[in-house]
């Protein structure tokens, strides 16, 4: 009951943020200097052509009406058409988003699966060799630029060792369309194509390692410091005095109170990678939204830019909502304090 109230409050806040986000995106798109119609048509177009396109895009209407149309379109899942190739922006984004989402999801899972245990080990053997090793490794991961790691992995695993594929999501010879969720591995599972799942994972591995390294380093470091902080708390000493075994103390009494900072970092990274994965996507020819977003920006394709930014923003809000709920689940103080406030 108490948890439900917490959940409802969080969802309402997120809705409010989304409304604010749509206003900001719309305002920025209208405020930036330069006429989108002119930019799309190029310097050789006549004034009539530009005026026609402006009318076509509704740019000649009052600003409030334009916003109303923008919102109405959003509600229908219509993000307008690309100014360059007339294709509906929504369908381009749908295809590319699925690819990026699959990549980033796998990346975050990797970062978390390795980062948290490394942090726990470092904290458990603080100032001894496992700790020193983890700290050096984590710093190294956190400061290595993604594109450098991407190229390194590609050269090493792809061209020297020939063990992993280096471009795309699936071998071209494989006849498979991810048309249920758009995620190759999930759709492979749903269609019962285990060969597709395995190939999909093979293709995912290199780009997601390249993306995951920095996040994993962060998570390992934050888990370590959070665990060390909790380890010095009275309640840990108390559980020791009551004879609770070390294994339980570390993995239950220490890990759970330490879990909020890594969870928060994970959420932020998850959301920002959706937009920031483009370097790795370009290196591995991954048909994702981050790379698509960069292309649209370079081509000044206004509707597509707004679409990409809006989708990234919605995703950011959703992930943070999810993380808030998880944090409330992990730490009762969050949901109980929220109720009192």
């Amino acid at each position, binding site marked *: 009951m108490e948890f439900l109230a917490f959940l409802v409050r969080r969802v309402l806040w997120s809705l409010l943020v989304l409304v604010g986000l749509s206003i900001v995106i719309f305002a920025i798109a209208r405020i930036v200097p330069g006429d989108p119609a002119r930019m799309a048509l190029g310097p050789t177009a006549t004034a009539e052509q530009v005026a026609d396109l402006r009318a076509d895009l509704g740019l000649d209407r009052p600003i409030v009406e334009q916003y109303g149309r923008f919102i109405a379109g959003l509600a229908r899942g219509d993000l307008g058409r690309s100014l360059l190739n007339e294709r509906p922006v929504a369908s381009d984004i749908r295809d590319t988003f699925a690819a990026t989402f699959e990549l980033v999801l796998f990346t975050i899972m990797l970062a978390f699966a390795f980062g948290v245990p490394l942090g726990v080990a470092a904290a458990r053997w603080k100032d001894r060799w496992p700790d020193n090793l983890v700290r050096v490794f984590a710093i190294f991961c956190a400061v290595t630029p993604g594109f450098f790691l991407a190229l390194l992995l590609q050269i090493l695993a792809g061209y020297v060792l020939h063990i992993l594929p280096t471009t795309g999501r699936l071998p071209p010879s494989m006849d498979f369309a991810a048309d249920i969720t758009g995620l190759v591995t999930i759709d492979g599972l749903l269609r019962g194509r285990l060969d597709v799942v395995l190939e999909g994972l093979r293709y995912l591995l290199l780009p997601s390692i390249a993306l995951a390294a920095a996040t994993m380093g962060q998570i390992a470091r934050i888990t370590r410091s959070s665990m060390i902080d909790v380890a010095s708390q*009275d309640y840990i000493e*108390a559980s020791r*005095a009551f*004879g609770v075994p070390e294994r*339980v103390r570390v993995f239950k009494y220490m890990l*759970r109170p330490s879990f909020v900072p890594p969870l928060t970092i994970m959420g932020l990274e998850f959301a920002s990678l959706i937009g920031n994965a483009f370097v790795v996507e370009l290196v591995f020819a991954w048909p994702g939204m981050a790379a698509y977003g960069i292309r649209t920006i370079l081509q000044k394709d206004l509707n597509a830019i707004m679409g990409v930014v809006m989708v990234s923003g919605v995703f950011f809000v959703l992930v943070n909502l999810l993380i808030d709920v998880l944090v409330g689940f*992990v*730490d009762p*103080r969050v949901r*109980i304090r929220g109720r009192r406030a």
Partner: protein
Amino acid sequence: MSQALLSVDNLSVDFSTYGQTHHVLKNVSLDVPARSQIALVGESGSGKTVTMKAIMGLLRQPPATIAGGRIFYDGRDLLTLPDKERLKLRGTAMSMVFQDPMSSLNPVFTIADQMTTILKYADRRLDRQRNGRDRLARVHEVLTQVRMRDPERVARSYPIMLSGGMRQRVLIAMALLSEPKLLIADEPGTALDVTTQAQILKLLKDLVEARGLALLMITHNLGVVRETSSYVYVMNKGQVVEHRPTAELFAAPREDYTKALIAAVPRLTGGTRFGTAEVAP
């Protein structure tokens, strides 16, 4: 060797930090007979907490080393006991009541979760068979013993949902879970207001007397000493400087340090006379 339930015999403990060795405890001896209420009093840094940790086997070694002496519990020397045997006593036969109710409970688990976990591993150490439901029943039982009006609700609660006084009572209940013979109380209630602390001490005293437990009260508060003990050890700079029946000590303190400690108690009439107690390093 005495017949006391707990007997600390010439215990010396050193701490090594940054290449220097500090003699933190110097030949400390004290006896806690069964069913007795003993106080160990001293200012911060006098060595009372180290004594307590040594008894409970909670000293981190390193930096601490036991330089000499013995600690007998029920006739067995704890310092030479194998780890496994020692663990069978910790939190079960001898149990601690923690000082700070605000920080001694894990904030992210319910009271029931924390208490049944303690009980589960105590049962395991002692080869006791008991299922989860019986453990929860035992938790409700001890919560009732510390005079919780609604033990089931308290058990379901997270620490943040309880008042300081209730949390302190939960800490006492935790110590009672496995029916110890010796309770070591580390300044319980110091973090609470005076009225609540008085209630907690009264509760603790009643419980100890009703169940025939031995109590070792570790405190810097002479008021607490007077109310909760019949015999008192005074510590200063890692040594026991005076030990006598409580009433005698207050009537006619012998050592200058004890006199200074008594003189340092603030008085309601005003004009606190801060004594000339030598401050430990």
